[in-house]
């Protein structure tokens, strides 16, 4: 849509704003902003998505998911959980067996051209045309998605991914980390509003992984909605606004990361007692604690992901001193998204077993 800028800097111009045609402009823009905010709240809507492969494998089982504009959504799951199939179904690589996918208000089963022009995909595999130069590969991607050539834009993308010096190199000459960045550059060449990153940091060393995280944050700053799959929980914990946990083709849980941490997170503190205890005094027993290792250890488990656990542990230490119970050491840690994930996945396993 054409953008008409209204720049107001002087009192006269403010007055001029109220001239009928200006006022119409202002109202039109305001209305557009309002409707676009309402409409764009959900950028991708998946409902009842099922995929059964020719061999009979059910890779996706009645998946419902909606993605909000501007968020980073991490899809977390073990290998073979259906993450890549889910991405493939949205991006047109996998044909869904049933269910509907709506992106930007376009139904992907018939209005796919318009939707796909606004979606970018960075695949998990390092699949590139090895003999192509970086510059040509990225320019090709831009054209393929229907955009006119724009050297300045491609230069900007290559520079932001530290690929500018390599622009004339054939892709086969690049290192693995660089190849992955070429794939990202290709996916960004058509300025997608929704970007899928399938295991963006798989097989990437720690240094590069940090760089990748910075780049993903920078993309979000620009307003790109990002869906990433990962099995590095650290990644999801660091980057994501919301986390979805997928296993066996089913979405087990979708929640704000903070809410999930708060709801399911705990603090664990283990006190090594100087003298073994057989029972706890009342002032200590009111804490969520238990004696383990034949009374040689006092184990606290409580709180939530918001930090209330560590406050309680501090109170517990004072109570122990007051009760005259001595201890030689404290081992304290907060559960991570990883613990939550492992708990959740193993709990479901027990359920189904």
């Amino acid at each position: 849509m054409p953008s008409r800028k209204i720049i107001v800097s002087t009192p006269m111009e403010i007055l001029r704003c109220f001239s009928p045609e200006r006022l119409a402009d202002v109202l039109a823009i305001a209305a557009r902003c309002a409707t676009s905010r309402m409409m764009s709240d959900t950028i991708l809507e998946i409902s009842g998505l099922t995929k059964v492969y020719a061999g009979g494998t059910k890779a996706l089982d009645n998946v419902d998911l909606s993605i909000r504009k501007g968020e980073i959504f991490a899809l977390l799951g073990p290998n073979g959980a259906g993450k890549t199939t889910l991405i493939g179904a949205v991006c047109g690589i996998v044909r869904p067996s049933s269910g509907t996918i709506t992106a930007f208000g376009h139904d992907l089963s018939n209005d796919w051209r318009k939707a796909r022009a606004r979606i970018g995909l960075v695949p998990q595999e390092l699949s590139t045309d090895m003999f192509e130069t970086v510059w040509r590969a990225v320019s090709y991607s831009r054209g393929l998605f229907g955009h006119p050539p724009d050297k300045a834009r491609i230069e900007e993308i290559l520079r932001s991914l530290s690929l500018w010096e390599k622009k004339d190199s054939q892709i086969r000459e690049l290192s693995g980390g660089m190849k992955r960045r070429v794939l990202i550059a290709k996916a960004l060449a058509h300025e997608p509003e929704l970007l899928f990153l399938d295991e963006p940091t798989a097989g990437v060393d720690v240094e590069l992984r940090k760089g990748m995280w910075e780049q993903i944050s920078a993309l979000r700053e620009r307003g790109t909605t990002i869906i990433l799959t990962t099995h590095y929980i650290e990644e999801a914990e660091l980057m994501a606004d919301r986390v979805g946990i997928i296993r066996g083709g089913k979405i087990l849980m979708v929640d704000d990361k903070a809410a999930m941490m708060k709801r399911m997170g705990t603090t664990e503190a283990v006190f090594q007692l100087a003298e073994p205890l057989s029972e706890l005094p009342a002032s200590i027993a009111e804490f969520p604690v238990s004696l383990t290792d034949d009374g040689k250890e006092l184990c606290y488990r409580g709180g939530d992901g918001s930090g209330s656990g560590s406050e309680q542990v501090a109170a517990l230490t004072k109570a122990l001193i007051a009760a005259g119970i001595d201890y030689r050491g404290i081992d304290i840690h907060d559960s991570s998204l990883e613990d939550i994930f492992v708990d959740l996945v193993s709990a479901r396993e027990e359920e189904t077993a």
Partner: protein
Amino acid sequence: MAFNIRGAWSIYQRELMRALRTAFQSILSPVLTTSLYFVVFGTVIGGRMEPVDGVAYGAFIIPGLLMLTLLGETTSNSSFGIYMPRFTGTIYELLSAPVGVAETLIGFVGAAATKGLILAAIILGTATLFVDYEIKYPLAAIGYIMLVAASFSLFGFILGIWADSFEKLGIIPLLILTPLTFLGGTFYSIDDLPGIWSTIAYANPIAFLVSGLRWTFYGTSDVSIWVSLGLTLGFLALCTGIIAFIFKTGWRLRE
């Protein structure tokens, strides 16, 4: 966006660039092969042959040799063009892009057909070094070459989607196309074949193609140009239909 013309153009450009990158293989090797045919059949053997249908033997074999190279090259070019992305996994980009069957075909097949035309020009240029010839209907010849190049690019495209190994990719051109072209009147007029063999030869569709091209060159042919033209157009339509079906069902493209 109803039709992504930039997408089609990007594919077309890239495929042509790919040919330039492998210019030695794409252009020089057919030139060399054709030159060898001219030296052996045109000059050495051809010098002892009677003219066929009033055309000197060296000139008579030009349309057939052209067809031989054209069919082989456009088929393999186009089949490689789509097979390689499937093999290396880069096809993900094409599948996720806003391009449909029309853009894909215009890109891949258009490029393969263009390469076919360039190749034909090079072969005809090479031929002038060995034999004297004149093309009776140059425009018809160009049109017919384009038509054949487009048809066999489509055929190659189907082949590249069907093949799931390099072996399968090479087997059709090697075991079917090349023998049929050799037996399709490249080096002789089908009517000169003895008895039953000439009838059998007419079961070979390539014979009609060679005959059609020969008509545009010399005005003489084994079968009417309209039969050849009709057959070529029919083949073009068939291949287009198959490809449209492949895209609709996603066969071998989308899981």
